[in-house]
């Protein structure tokens, strides 16, 4: 059985767990770093990235998260999760986990009154994915090995860099599990490779 963790320090944890379960895999809420050893992949949910970062530092999660990435385990960040994964952040000297080769700008669509939803075409996922953007970040620049999966009004809002998947929007706020299913496939492939 594939086991996928959801970082459960703050944010929309339950929705991601339900989406994973709908895709037929076991979902584990990760509140302690030791629990990361059990999982084949990890979702970093939407929420407040500053809050998550403070709790990551407080509970000494950072090395374990970087270790998970170094083992080749897939990681998927939505909104705040994308901010945590990015190698470069506009306006900040240091990234958070800093493993996905993208440059991200926070709150780049404006404040809450500018939050919106739109149906988007995502390469390899769907032609009409209902994407909910809430005080969302976007990918300003992507490294050469990064596959851009989706743009909205010229801005990159979903991308894949090998084992890392990131999006600006919140698939967890809809009943559409297709992007979660895409990530589950990434996890299955990675696990297969490690077994060979």
């Amino acid at each position: 059985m594939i086991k996928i963790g959801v970082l459960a320090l703050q944010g929309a944890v339950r929705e991601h767990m339900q989406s994973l379960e709908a895709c037929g895999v076991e979902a584990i809420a990760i509140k302690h770093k030791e629990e990361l050893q059990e999982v084949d992949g990890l979702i970093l949910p939407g929420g407040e990235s500053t809050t998550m970062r403070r709790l990551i530092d407080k509970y000494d999660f950072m090395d374990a998260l970087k270790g998970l990435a170094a083992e080749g385990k897939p990681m998927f960040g939505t909104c705040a999760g994308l901010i945590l994964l990015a190698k470069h952040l506009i306006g900040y000297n240091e990234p958070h986990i800093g493993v996905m080769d993208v440059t991200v700008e926070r709150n780049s669509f404006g404040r809450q009154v500018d939050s919106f939803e739109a149906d988007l075409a995502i390469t390899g996922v769907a032609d009409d994915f209902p994407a909910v953007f809430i005080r969302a970040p976007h990918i300003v620049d992507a490294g050469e090995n990064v596959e851009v999966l989706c743009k909205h009004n010229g801005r990159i809002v979903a991308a894949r860099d090998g084992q890392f998947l990131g999006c600006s929007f919140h698939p967890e706020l809809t009943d559409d599990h297709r992007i979660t299913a895409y990530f589950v496939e990434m996890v299955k492939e990675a696990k297969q490779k490690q077994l060979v």
Partner: protein
Amino acid sequence: MKTGTDRVKRGMAEMQKGGVIMDVVNAEQAKIAEEAGAVAVMALERVPSDIRAAGGVARMADPRIVEEVMNAVSIPVMAKARIGHIVEARVLEALGADYIDESEVLTPADEEFHLNKKEFTVPFVCGCRDLGEAARRIGEGASMLRTKGEPGTGNIVEAVRHMRKVNAQVRKVVSMNEDELMTEAKLLGAPYEVLLEIKRNGGLPVVNFAAGGVATPADAALMMQLGADGVFVGSGIFKSENPAKFARAIVEATTHFQDYSLIAELSKGLGTPMKGIEISSLAPEARMQDRGW
């Protein structure tokens, strides 16, 4: 591309789950809150305990304070408008506040009607003591709920009462047959459609935070155990001896609300919390929770 949809407005509150929203009165406090790990701040002119002490009419904060706080932090900024005060709410929306609290902490502007929150692009949070009140606010377009508690008292008893009441009534609705819901709607004073949504959803369609009297890390953890999605802390933090330490402790207790040895550790040496008020010593007209209809 659509703005101001239910999904966008309710979704914003979903992202705050498991977090602490802190009352602040200036940029300096806002920065302390953000640094401590708050998921949002509520920009106010005075915290509830000072509103209580000052008396008189309490209104929306000076827009300069709201702006100062918005410029100081990158986390969402909420602000309070008086119940039924359409223009205060529109002004806060125009300023770019991320969420508006139509709040009984301020003196109501309308003693009969709440705002029609569906007409706004900005989302609203409202207080509730029971499911009837919660469902009426959802019916008017609130995208987030919180217990009313008794603000500015540092006494958790009313927030506990309200959280237990709402959750017990939600459980009852979920377990009822659909053909019993209309009568339940009549008894609760709740819109039938909202009860139907609760029944089909298996719970409230919006998040419900604890608010009104949270004064210690243990209080915050208690409310999470009773089923709160997160916690508002008003006067508790900046009325304590060491606000930064206190704020960090509340955030951690909210995340790890079942880790008792951790809560013991972070409750040590926090200094004196705000002095509380026994609810029965409040005059009826001083009870903020009775405002709202």
